[in-house]
């Protein structure tokens, strides 16, 4: 179970939060201008990376504020949380210990135990 650092309330148990999927997806300002395919991408398609993921959380049982987080989905490690109006941190700042698109890092992934 994660500990999440709400930028407003501090570190709290995951049970107080809800996840909102990929961050930095901007709602089209003029949906009518999009064709069906583009619109369906906005409504239904979100990134689903294994590794570094920019995502949204809301402190739903706390201050009810939304914020963003950078998390490694292959280890669940939360690298940073930041407010909505802050710039997304640069990906290169984080060590992505991911080896392949589908491979796990050996440490913490939940899918390995033995160091070879």
């Amino acid at each position: 179970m994660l500990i999440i650092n709400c930028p407003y309330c501090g570190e709290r148990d995951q049970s107080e939060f809800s996840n909102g999927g990929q961050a930095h997806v901007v709602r089209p300002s003029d949906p009518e201008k999009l064709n069906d395919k583009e619109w369906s991408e906005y409504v239904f398609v979100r990134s689903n990376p294994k590794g570094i993921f920019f995502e949204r959380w809301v402190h739903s049982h706390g201050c009810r504020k939304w914020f963003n987080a950078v998390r490694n989905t292959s280890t669940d490690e939360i690298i940073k949380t930041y407010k909505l109006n802050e710039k997304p941190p640069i990906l290169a700042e984080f060590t992505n210990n991911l080896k392949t698109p589908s491979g796990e890092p050996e440490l913490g992934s939940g899918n390995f135990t033995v160091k070879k």
Partner: protein
Amino acid sequence: MKELYSLRGLDVFQKDLHQIVLRGKGDEKFKEIINKETSLSLPPENLKITQNDKFLLAKHSFDQWNLFYLDRKEHKEVLKMVSTFNSHEEILASDYSYGQVYFEISGKDKNYYLNKLTHFDFRIKKFPNLSMAQTLVAKIDCSIYHLNDKFIITCNCSLEEYFKERLLDAINL
């Protein structure tokens, strides 16, 4: 104020309080309006509480402040205050007086009992005096205010019975 339970290092009272939830930007204008009506300045930081002899003001987040009356008033006076606030278009004020229930919890073992019901970290280094938090207690959304040796815990009034029963259960077991 009604005494609910008092035993083994824990005292629980149910209180009647007036509360107004204020939403707004928190800018100079906002400060002025609040100050004018309550003579209070805004808490310096998020999750902090300021008070004078009439009111207590807690900053819940960057756009929410909860105002408590420290003495009993007629409801219409509170409503008048609400409409005064609401006369400013940049503020939303909602009367929360009777839709919430208020429990005052004190005693040396209060953390012990409360931690049967919540994961919240009550240690003084994490939850200092005159601060507040919103969290889950017994699966219920609650606000907790740390006032000297006491906690005030509030939740929705529809959950009053459940909350009391859980508290009693935690004390008894």
